[in-house]
């Protein structure tokens, strides 16, 4: 990858678009790289916290990739993890403060998991694997793309968990009252974390069914 070529490249070249869309499906951080599982299980009982978490993680991955990519030539390799952590921690604290200021109730629900974005494997993984060796703009796109891939899975899992566990979507009642009167009940298991794991498993199952290239050779 020569520098001259990169400068001439348009902002949304095919390669850059691929950085953005790749993590959404074929290189998804949760279902393919299996990173960031813990928070995906914890915050997906409802759509609202999942959506806020998606925004928070996307912002942090995007901007931390950008910042680290800008700094990449000045960071001594031996202390790079510390530098990365400082950048990520700063961004996470910013996000946390913004959440507390504007959506306090959701910030309460997410509780410790906003702070734990610092240790989210996706972020460190992308910093190490991509931002340290790429220019700022592609690094930013890669960060946002991974945030989108993470958020997509979060929202899908939260959709099924909230629909079957609470009968609502974003807090609006979806399942009609007549169904409850007919004997329907919400599935308490869907609210418990094990079902999030199983839902993620089903998503991986479906994804691999349609993308045969993802199946490992025996």
């Amino acid at each position, binding site marked *: 990858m020569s520098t001259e070529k990169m400068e001439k490249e348009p902002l949304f070249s095919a390669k850059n678009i691929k950085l953005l869309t790749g993590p959404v499906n074929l290189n998804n951080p949760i279902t393919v790289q299996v990173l960031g599982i813990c928070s995906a299980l914890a915050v997906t009982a409802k759509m609202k916290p999942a959506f806020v978490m998606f925004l928070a993680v996307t912002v942090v991955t995007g901007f931390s990739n950008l910042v680290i990519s800008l700094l990449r030539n000045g960071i001594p390799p031996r202390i790079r993890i510390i530098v990365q952590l400082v950048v990520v921690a700063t961004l996470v604290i910013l996000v946390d403060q913004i959440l507390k200021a504007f959506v306090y109730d959701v910030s309460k629900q997410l509780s410790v998991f906003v702070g734990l974005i610092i240790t989210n494997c996706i972020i460190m993984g992308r910093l190490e694997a991509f931002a340290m060796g790429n220019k700022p703009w592609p690094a930013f796109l890669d960060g946002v793309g991974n945030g989108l891939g993470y958020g997509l899975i979060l929202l899908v899992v939260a959709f099924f968990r909230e629909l079957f566990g609470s009968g609502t979507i974003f807090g609006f009642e979806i399942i009609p009252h007549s169904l409850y009167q007919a004997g329907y009940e919400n*599935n*308490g*298991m869907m609210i418990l974390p094990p079902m999030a794991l*199983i839902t993620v498993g089903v998503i991986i*199952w479906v994804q691999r069914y349609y993308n045969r290239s993802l199946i490992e050779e025996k």
Partner: protein
Amino acid sequence: MKALRKILDKQKPKFQKGGKLHNLESTFEAFETFLFVPNTVAKTGAHIRDAVDMKRFMFTVIIALVPAFIFGTWNVGYEHYLSYGQHPDFLTNFLYGLGKVLPLVVVSYAVGLGIEFIFAQIRHEEVNEGFLVSGLLIPLIVPPDLPLWQLAIGVAFAVIFGKEVFGGTGMNVFNPALTARAFIFFAYPGNMSGDKVWIADKLDTFSGATPLSKALVNNFSNFPSFHDMFWGYIPGSVGETSTFWILVGAVILLLTGVASWRVMLSMFAGGLFMGLIFNLVGPASNQYMHIAPWDHLIMGGFAFGAVFMATDPVTSAQTTKGKYYYGFLIGLIAVLIRVVNPGYPEGVMLSILLMNAFAPLIDHFVVKSNIKKRLKRAAIAVNK
């Protein structure tokens, strides 16, 4: 018999390759081998073969379940009429119970076998036999009034996520019947726990508490006698109440060699052991810790779990020594959960599922220790 064979032979070409219905090949194969022992012969290598194949093997368990099933069905009716203060004759009780239990059995088999057949068809494999037993076990370990759609979801979950994703019968980590029960238990706790669900359509004023839930809150007034609990005249899941009729099933299983006596015996021993420990160390204020250890074995699902669940040949430990550890720990943990945990009056289901997960580890260490022992022996022989 011959007529049946003729019909099957006539239909067979349709289901074989090139036939009209060859998509349903495994369905046909399943029914054929269900009716007739297949006459295939091993072509290579030496195999010791027995006339009893998987289907016959599984059927022995079903026969062993019949006594508990019949008594449980009768007991559903008996408890129902008892809550109204009535004592009708055997047949009335039994028929009432049948009206409650039969739908459970039908739904359990229809959903479970339906999914099994679909998976077999997609994978072009033979239909697994395992669900023959699970399908009857599941109705026996749920309360009689469980809504059928909840049972159906539980069964579907257990068959798909407890069994098929691991590769079908023989590959599963957890006992499918207990997986179904655990799923329903956590998904719809209102219909699976508490004092209201264990008697079918009971009178509201009648206490429907099981001995376990009474004991958990230290309520030992009106506690059922040993006699009642042993013979099973207590509310509870359909097939689990009567220790006596479960033991009859155990005798059938042991005489035919289908189940392992090591697991059963050590599980009872584990329960007794933990009961004794509570007797010795429990504070005097906690009456539950001071009930006789054998009371634990006849309450709730302990006997049923020991005879029909823990002995499941797929999910239990495989080594001879491992079976002792496995059974003992199930009994011990079951009583521990019952007495100490305030959330779950019954611990047998959870302890069996827990030990299912640990069974391979137990086997691993048993095999390792055996290797070590034999190496030592060999080393001594060489040194001499």
